[in-house]
């Protein structure tokens, strides 16, 4: 369990326990607030982004309140160039979005090692405001997207040259 200091001490380092990455030293200003948690884990509202391998284009959304909660996420546009959705006015307000560059989109990836396959959830992208450090998993309930889209891997050159 992490005992959180007051937000006034934004530059003070804190230690976060994680099951996947051991103990991490982070600064409170790296924390993303998810006021509604995420579906299935509504009670966990604070996350950090962990990118363990800088050469590979995926990260983990790691809860700082529950050491075992880490979701593998990836940039959906790397795999689905035509992926497209509108961020509603209501969501823009909720996420305090002022301009397009505030917004970064992550999609949850599930890897099935037995079949050596992976799927991506395009129905519910995780949208974060990198300036305000807040986020939400948005459900595109009017779209045709599903929770499991098979990942086809672009060639290695393309994956390596796109910046995170």
């Amino acid at each position, binding site marked *: 369990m992490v005992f959180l200091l007051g937000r006034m001490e934004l530059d003070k380092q804190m230690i976060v326990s994680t099951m996947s990455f051991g103990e991490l030293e982070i600064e409170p200003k790296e924390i993303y607030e998810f006021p509604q948690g995420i579906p299935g884990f509504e009670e966990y509202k604070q996350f950090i982004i962990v990118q363990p391998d800088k050469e590979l284009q*995926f990260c983990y959304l790691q809860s700082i309140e529950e050491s075992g909660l*880490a*979701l593998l996420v990836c940039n959906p546009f790397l795999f689905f160039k035509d992926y497209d959705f509108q961020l509603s006015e209501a969501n823009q307000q*909720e996420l305090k979005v002022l301009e397009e560059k505030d917004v970064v989109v992550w999609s949850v990836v599930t890897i099935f090692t037995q079949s050596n396959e992976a799927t991506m959830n395009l129905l*519910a992208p995780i949208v974060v405001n990198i300036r305000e450090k807040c986020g939400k998993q948005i459900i595109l309930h009017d779209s045709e997207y599903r929770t499991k889209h098979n990942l086809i891997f672009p060639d290695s050159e393309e994956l390596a040259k796109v910046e995170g």
Partner: protein
Amino acid sequence: MLVLTRKKGESIMIGDQIELVVISVEGDLVKLGIKAPQQVEIFRKEIYQSIQAANREASEKTLKIDEVSKFFKSKE
């Protein structure tokens, strides 16, 4: 759970800003109209449940980082 019986055309208010209207009833199908403020999200329950299930499955399958790297690299 509060259970109310409504006829076609009748409404239910939830709080003072959300209204549920029974638009039509045809056999097993009930068509409902919902008026709510923009910030209130409305969706079919099974969709929310499918996202919950997908997130839980993804979190249960959290692989060690070297296994994920191996997986991504194997796809190159």
